């Protein structure tokens, strides 16, 4: 079933019309702006984005709390992140994002724990500030090796008028200038996780950078100091990236924020270059560091050998010949492994068609890795992307690719049902829907409990996982023989 580009375009346009027909008129009009067929040569993908989701449509999106606690702050391992409000938010996001770290959990690291103020009715009625004060005292008593505290606001905090900033200031003073960060990431703010990233970035600026003595941590810089920004170390991604940067001669002084520490965050303005993986969630702080500290930043993509090589060269371009040679040395070193991986898996995956729907950078960043394996991404979309994401996407997608922003459950199901891709890459909420339809699936947020996928070591795992999903014998069993 090989369609020409024009046939694909027509088919995709018809599909969009079809899914829109199910909505009430007002909603159809709104959703129409988020669905598009990519036109080559355009500056973006032709969709509106970062707009409120329609009520009642089964959006996949999360909230600002998820963006702050779940994404940006949560992985900083030596701080205690309080889910401030009722018990649920912290409970559902407890350890589920697989931000790997090394530390003695409960003693000097706290990443896989759930700290909450567990709001009760009286806290709503009388306010939670007193409780928060006491809670911080209890944290200090029971977890004396914590290096800082963040207060991650859940919905009620902003609605009942609590002053978590005042509490944080007061307690920071009491505890000898301890880093205590109030974060206004209530779930109703903004339209998705995205505002939570932004708020979290701003709080690092205001409550870490601006309040910390730059000489707090004894630090001797080198000309080759870089910080990894926007890698949450899911399944160890930041590690399989760091190893490459170090092998090419750079010194990684900080990881933001997977396996990160508050000291690394504090030292980051001393980096010579910030290398930014997830643009969406950490471009804000990167821009700030450029403005305030003069630290340049560069985006990179460590999915698949083609993009890794291009990114290593681009990063090296910011340094001297020693590093440039280092980059070439690293690319050469891993080329045998990459050739082997491709020789092994490409014959099993060539020509397979993929539909993606993920967050952050992945709806575009992983396309190259699929293409390295001879696969084709025929549809993609962002859960919480902005227009600058869709602009960047034009460098990756082919003409007539189906684009869906903040896709609804109904739309995604219909698209997949009609297009019948060989693989869908999306999240836990989508996984079982498509597998029941008989469509191979990989979770592309959590790497389906596998990973890492970043870097050369990660690409081997990525290739193996895609092969496992698509070529599993289970897909031949979905129809009972007497029903065929």
């Amino acid at each position, binding site marked *: 079933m090989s369609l020409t580009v024009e046939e694909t375009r027509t088919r995709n346009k018809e599909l969009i019309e079809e899914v829109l027909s199910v*909505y009430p008129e007002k909603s159809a009009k709104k959703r129409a702006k988020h669905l598009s067929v990519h036109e080559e040569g355009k500056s973006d993908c032709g969709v509106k984005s970062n707009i409120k989701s329609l009520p009642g449509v089964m959006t996949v999106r999360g909230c600002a709390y998820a963006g702050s606690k779940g994404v940006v702050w949560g992985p900083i391992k030596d701080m205690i992140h309080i889910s401030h409000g009722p018990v649920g938010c912290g409970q559902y996001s407890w350890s589920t994002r697989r931000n790997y770290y090394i530390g003695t959990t409960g003693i000097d690291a706290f990443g896989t724990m759930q700290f909450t103020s567990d709001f009760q009715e009286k806290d709503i009625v009388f306010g939670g500030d007193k409780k928060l004060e006491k809670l911080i005292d209890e944290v200090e008593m029971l977890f004396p090796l914590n290096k800082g505290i963040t207060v991650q606001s859940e919905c009620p905090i902003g609605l009942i008028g609590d002053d978590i900033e005042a509490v944080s200031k007061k307690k920071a003073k009491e505890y000898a200038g301890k880093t205590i960060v109030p974060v206004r990431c209530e779930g109703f703010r903004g339209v998705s996780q995205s505002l939570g990233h932004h708020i979290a970035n701003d709080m690092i600026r205001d409550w870490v950078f601006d309040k910390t003595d730059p000489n707090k941590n004894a630090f001797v810089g080198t000309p080759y100091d870089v910080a990894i920004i926007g890698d949450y170390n899911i399944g160890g991604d930041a590690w399989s990236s760091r190893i490459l940067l170090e092998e090419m001669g750079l010194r990684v002084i900080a990881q933001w924020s997977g396996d990160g520490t508050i000291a690394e965050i504090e030292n980051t303005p001393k980096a010579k270059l910030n290398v930014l993986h997830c643009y969406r969630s950490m471009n804000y702080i990167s821009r700030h560091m450029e403005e305030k500290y003069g630290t340049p930043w560069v985006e990179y993509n460590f999915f698949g050998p083609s993009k890794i090589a291009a990114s290593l060269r681009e990063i090296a371009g910011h340094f001297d010949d020693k590093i440039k040679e280092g980059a070439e040395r690293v690319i050469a070193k891993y080329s045998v492994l990459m050739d082997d991986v491709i020789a092994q898996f490409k014959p099993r995956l060539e020509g397979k068609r993929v539909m993606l729907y993920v967050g952050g950078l992945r709806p575009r960043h992983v396309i190259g890795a699929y293409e390295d394996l001879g696969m084709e991404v025929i549809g993609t979309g962002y859960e919480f992307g902005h227009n600058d994401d869709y602009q960047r996407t034009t460098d990756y997608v082919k003409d007539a690719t189906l684009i869906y922003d903040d896709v609804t459950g109904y739309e995604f199901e219909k698209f997949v049902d009609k297009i019948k891709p060989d693989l869908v890459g999306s999240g836990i909420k989508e996984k079982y829907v498509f597998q029941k339809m008989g469509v191979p699936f990989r979770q592309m947020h959590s790497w389906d409990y596998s990973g890492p996928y970043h870097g050369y070591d990660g690409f081997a795992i990525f290739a193996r996982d895609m092969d496992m999903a698509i070529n599993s014998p289970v897909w031949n069993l979905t129809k009972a023989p007497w029903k065929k």
Partner: protein
Amino acid sequence: MTQSAEKVIDHEMLFRQPEYTEMFENKQKNFEYKHPEARIVEIQEWTKTKEYQEKNFAREALTVNPAKACQPLGAVFAAVGFANTLPFVHGSQGCVAYYRSHFSRHFKEPTSCVSSSMTEDAAVFGGLNNMVDGLANAYNMYKPDMIAVSTTCMAEVIGDDLDSFIKTAKTKGSIPEDYDVPFAHTPAFVGSHITGYDNALKGIVEHFWSKAGERTPIANKINFIGGFDGYTTGNLREIKRLLGLMGADYTILGDTSDIWDTPTDGEFRMYDGGTTKEEVKAAYNASATISFQEFCTEKTIKYIASKGQETVALNQPIGVTGTDQFLMEVSRLTSKPIPDAITKERGRLVDAIADSQAMIHGKKFALYGDPDLMLGLTQFLLELGAEPTTVLSTNGDDKWAAKVQALFDASPFGKNCKVYPKKDMWHLRSLLFTEPVEYLIGNTHGKYLERDVGVPLIRLGFPIFDRHHYHRFPIWGYEGGLRVLVMILDEMFERLDQSTIITAKTDISYDIVR
């Protein structure tokens, strides 16, 4: 470089390779500004002491690693037990993303649920427009038989009135005037997921019964309520099988037996099974209702009793006595004898216990989880001759604790046992150090205690994220009792084998017959 195309290794082994361990050491040494190792060990040891436990138990504001979730999660659970019913949670959308993910991680199944996606403007002006548009969208897209509405804490804090909002939505034509939209206020800052289940179920039952007029009771017809239960698929099917053997005339209010294990056959079933509206209406005239989980259905049971039905509230029938009690209640309420086939099943469970009792006798257990599960498991452990020395629940209250204590008091094996209401898993961590047990029973989060304390975890509870398919098998009834028994025994035998596996050292006891 260790990675290879022939034998791809992932995170489990990759990060143990020297190129990575060396990198980790350098990162820690040069950039993390870690506390000295001796200090870490000192604090680690301190957390194991009685002194630490006292400070830990003196907490008033901080909750660490609780074993409970919030109300609307339970409301969604209740709603999907009704045929072609779409749960609709009024409030912030991130909450619904969390509930759906949470259920999918436990059941390895999709969970359909929509949100009214309230944002800042709704926080200021109220969420009426979100309700009006949300109901219209959900109704048009999915054509459910009914939409069951609950709330997040955001909608509760700003005081949105579901009753009037739904009426307005009907007036504005979002949904037909006679369309069924049962609702329940489910504030996350009151109770837990089991409270939400209770409120939502009561909302649905009340929706159909409040306008039903005079009851015309049907003798011997009964209703069942399963409650919030991580094993609902296996359990409700097992209960149906037993009731089928008894020939009982029954309705399950909130039948979640088919929704979380739909087939992979090329079709995605957004809804499957579930109690129909007609069945709910007809259930009004049943002579009695049995709840399997007292603490999960307090308000619903009270409401049903107020309508004139006899009500019986059990605490998860796990094991022999629990199942006996349940079957005898069914027999009494339906006037049907318990058939020999079931008596034989009972005998098989007793037989299995007799065969294995020496393994379990006198072993000390700590267990934590939802209140009714704790009661069911405590009762079973006591009848196995085990000692459930620590029974803890984050969402169990003093009334619950008194019931657990009554179980302890009724058994010689309960003498040294203690119940802990309203405590979390960080409290439990202290207890496991100061009052050690041999086995721990709980949900997936218990694996952190297994790691910290070294006590083996037997996974029984919710959520179970790191093992597959447990929910497909029952833990209720005699069959379910067998499953629980085997899970406990498997862990014990595995432990014994692990402790005797070293050649020429411990393998004297590495027995082939046990």
